[in-house]
């Protein structure tokens, strides 16, 4: 009688269980204690951390929460909801912003997004828009909304991100520029002088601060006709992971601190400019 080696068996069982779990709606959906589509009426606070739900590249719909599911790659919900909740805890503790303690999911299918002038999007290399969705996001930004994008890495992701972004704001009128140290967005609450690349949780295992070919963090922005930042672009970094893993003893504190300070400054900027 021949016994199968123990390690491969364990790995196989784990993989099988994981796939079954994803196919049935995803871990996070199953254990998610937070409602997926909070309505505007649920907000009894001034500020709600709003995460943009979009149709991912190759997907037929919004997909589920995290990882893969039947609908396709649900990239918009990466790090959801722990990143959001952890960041909100910091925001509530460190500022006078009357912020709701849990996140809000917004999409571009309805006008409800206009009740939330700050929106956060991740994995934006995979976002796609219909013409109507792009127009709604453009209106949102031009009327005073603020978009922060995070967690996309390298040249290919950048090009993919641009395809969607240019549907919303055309290059000629809304060029993308690098943010400088002296830009007001880095000084609204915290003076952030020396910025460095904030890696995702993969740093704990690999020691690398970059992913793909995104070796250098790019702090970029799109401004409106008065020079105000309306889209803050965090390329080649993963602030969301830093918030999510801030309470992990193995995740370096300087990265988490930088991520919190940048996030708070961005929120504060969006509420003052």
């Amino acid at each position, binding site marked *: 009688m021949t016994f199968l080696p123990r390690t491969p068996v364990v790995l196989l069982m784990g993989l099988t269980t994981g796939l079954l779990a994803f196919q049935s709606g995803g871990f996070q959906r199953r254990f998610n204690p937070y409602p997926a589509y909070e309505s505007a*009426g649920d*907000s*009894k*606070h*001034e*500020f709600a951390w709003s995460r943009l739900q979009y149709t991912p590249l190759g997907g037929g719909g919004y997909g589920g929460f995290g990882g893969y599911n039947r609908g396709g790659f649900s990239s918009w919900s990466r790090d959801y909801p722990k990143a959001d909740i952890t960041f909100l805890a910091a925001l509530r503790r*460190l*500022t*006078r*912003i*009357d912020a709701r303690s849990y996140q809000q999911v917004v999409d571009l299918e309805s*006008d409800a997004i*206009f*009740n939330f*002038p700050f929106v956060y999007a991740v994995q934006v290399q995979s976002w796609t828009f219909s013409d109507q969705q792009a127009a709604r996001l453009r*209106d*949102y930004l*031009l*009327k*005073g*909304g603020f978009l922060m994008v995070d967690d996309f890495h390298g040249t290919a992701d950048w090009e993919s991100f641009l395809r969607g972004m240019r549907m919303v704001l055309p290059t000629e009128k809304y060029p993308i520029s690098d943010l400088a140290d002296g830009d007001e967005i880095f000084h*609204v*609450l915290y003076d952030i002088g020396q910025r460095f690349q904030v890696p995702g949780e993969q740093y704990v295992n690999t020691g690398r601060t970059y992913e793909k070919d995104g070796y250098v963090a790019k702090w970029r922005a799109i401004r409106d006709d*008065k020079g*105000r930042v309306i889209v803050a672009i965090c390329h080649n970094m993963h602030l969301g992971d830093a918030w999510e893993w801030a309470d992990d003893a193995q995740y370096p504190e300087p990265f988490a601190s930088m991520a919190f300070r940048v996030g708070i400054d961005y929120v*504060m900027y*969006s*509420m*003052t*400019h």
Partner: protein
Amino acid sequence: MFKFLFKYPWSTFSRGHFVLLGAWPAWMLGLSIVVVSSGLALLIRAKLTPGDVGSRKFRVAGIWLLQSMLAALLLLLLWQPAITTAELKPQQDIIVFLVDDSRSMTLAENGTTRQAQAIAALGAGVLTGVEKRFQTRLYRFDRQAGRIANLKELHGSVPATRIGDSLKQIAAETQELPVGAIVLLTDGADNSGGIDADTIAALRSRHIPVHTVGFGADHATHDVEVDDAVMAPRAMADSRLGGVVRFHQYGYGGRKGKIVVRDGTTILASHEVTLGPDGAAQSDTLLFNVGAAGAKALQFSIEPLPGEESAVNNSVSRIVNVESDKRRVLYLEGEPRWEYKFVRRAEEDDRIVQLVSMLRTTENKIYRQGVQDPKELAEGFPTRAENLFAYQALVIGSVEATYFTAAQRELIREFVDRRGGGLLLLGGRFSLADGGWGVSNLADLLPVVLPDAKGTFHVEPATVELASAGVDNYITRLVDDSAANAKRWKSLPYLMDFQEPGAPKPGATVLADMSAGGKKMPMLTTENFGRGRTAVLATSGTWRWQMNSPVGDSAFTLFWQQLLRWLVTGTPGHVTASVPNQMLLDDGRVALSAEVRGDDYQPAGDARVEAHIIGPGGVSANIEMTPTPDAPGNFQAEWTANTPGSYLTEVIALRGERAVGRDVLTFQRMDGVAENFHTGQNRELLTRLASQTGGRYWRPQDLADLPDEIAFSEAGVTTRETRELWNMPIFLLAMVLLRFTEWLLRRKWGIV
């Protein structure tokens, strides 16, 4: 008929004094009447029997009354009634004929000018009739009076009429002469605003009656006339300004007219109005963008209608000083809020109003925006008057009253009351009642009585609509048309939150209301307080108007820009110069006044104030203004602009060599314009003038009696005449009537 019955004309009675010529005193007449009447009553009563019923008593009383009246009349005649009058001495007194020779007298009615009517009236025996008894002097007048030899010297070319000045001039020139009366022939279209009390007093002191003869119809048959246009004398550049045009019309009731306001040849605004009934006063408000800085003469007009008798009275000019100096608003916000962001964005488009803001981002950090230098507000909210008073308005967001020290709260009060600044309180978690403002010493500044409760701020939707006072208000005007404006407000997206503001105070104005949960409450309430103004906007959720309206919708931006401009517009500087009327019509006299306040905005009575005036044709004058008695910090000066044109005046206040402040104002002299207005006969003015001086108002067709009546005057050289009245036919007629009536009643009632 009057003269037949009363023997003398009415003027004899109206100008004479009643007297009794009999030797017995007047009180004996009264006593005699009482005694005789009582005697008659006793006699009649003695004839009554106990069985007489009420109707018989009533009839007997009637007979007694008739007999008593007859007896009283006879007794009156025994006392010899008479009337005494003062009359001019023939050939000794002078009668002055003063004929209006202004341009309005050349207006024609029924094919004849008013001047021709006057000449014809005088020529129809009136002048010769008077000349037979008295000396006469003939004058013409327009701006001033001038003696003429005959009526052919009238030409009617001068576009001004000053009745008061002309009468005063005549009174002065004839000071040493026995002027018995003045006959004034005019249409009464005076341009100087009436006849002043000094002129009336000068005439009355010499007992000179002014007989006025009115020419011209009371009004035109087909004419539209602009009576007035009212707008603020100052405005900020690029601001919307409201001008109220008052007008009336004859002959076009129900027709459409077009009201226009122009700056030079540029039309700033226009819209149609339906003309009201003949002679009815109408008014309409035009809203327009006043444009770039500078002194501007705006023309308010109603486009001429077909067949109008006069089109020159369809427009008036008004001057506005459009100022471009920056107005600074200090906005203190207690927590980061979307309203703060969107208000700042709205104000970034305003080139005049600068929003300087302090935002409490954390417990101990304040983020400043819009500061002029790094030191501004670095120490927090100002604690010194000169620092806070550098702003024109103050906006306080979600901040508890106790955030301020007692001294700072007092400073806020002084900011409104003494400095004349604007204060706006916004709704929020720490605002109004929830922020303890209702129990603070600043509660009386607010235009509402805040509720005595906590938890008044709700993050719940609330719909908005205009209150009646807000429909035409500058702050809440999103669309020029009133009805469309009210509709626009109802279509605004709902507010993100609201706060219960309590009840508006008496004197406060609610401009907009909001409704939530079936409850309606004031959203925006304003009030004047001291020299300044206050407002409560009981929400922090208007930003939703911006985010939930189409791109490019201006409702949110317009509302906030207008609200903050209202907040700063009335805030005075250290020097505020003014003139009673910026448009001088035919009269160049101007009274300058200035209010001067020091750094702390206390009256600066020790200042030295100068006015530098620059006018047309190189006219230049420096005037030292003098303190106004009993009004500390107020200064005044009088000056005359002799030449038509625009005058720029800079008023500077100095303390030693240091400038306290300056102000600039503009006025304009226009000659010949006023004559185009109010061209109908001013009968009311002429009647009043005659009445005040003891003369009479005459219609031209009644002038035949003038030569006789003009003799009754107490001016000049007079004699006193006594005329007996006992032989007036009216007395005989009255006696016969009384007896006949008594006889008739006795026969009818069977009383013998």
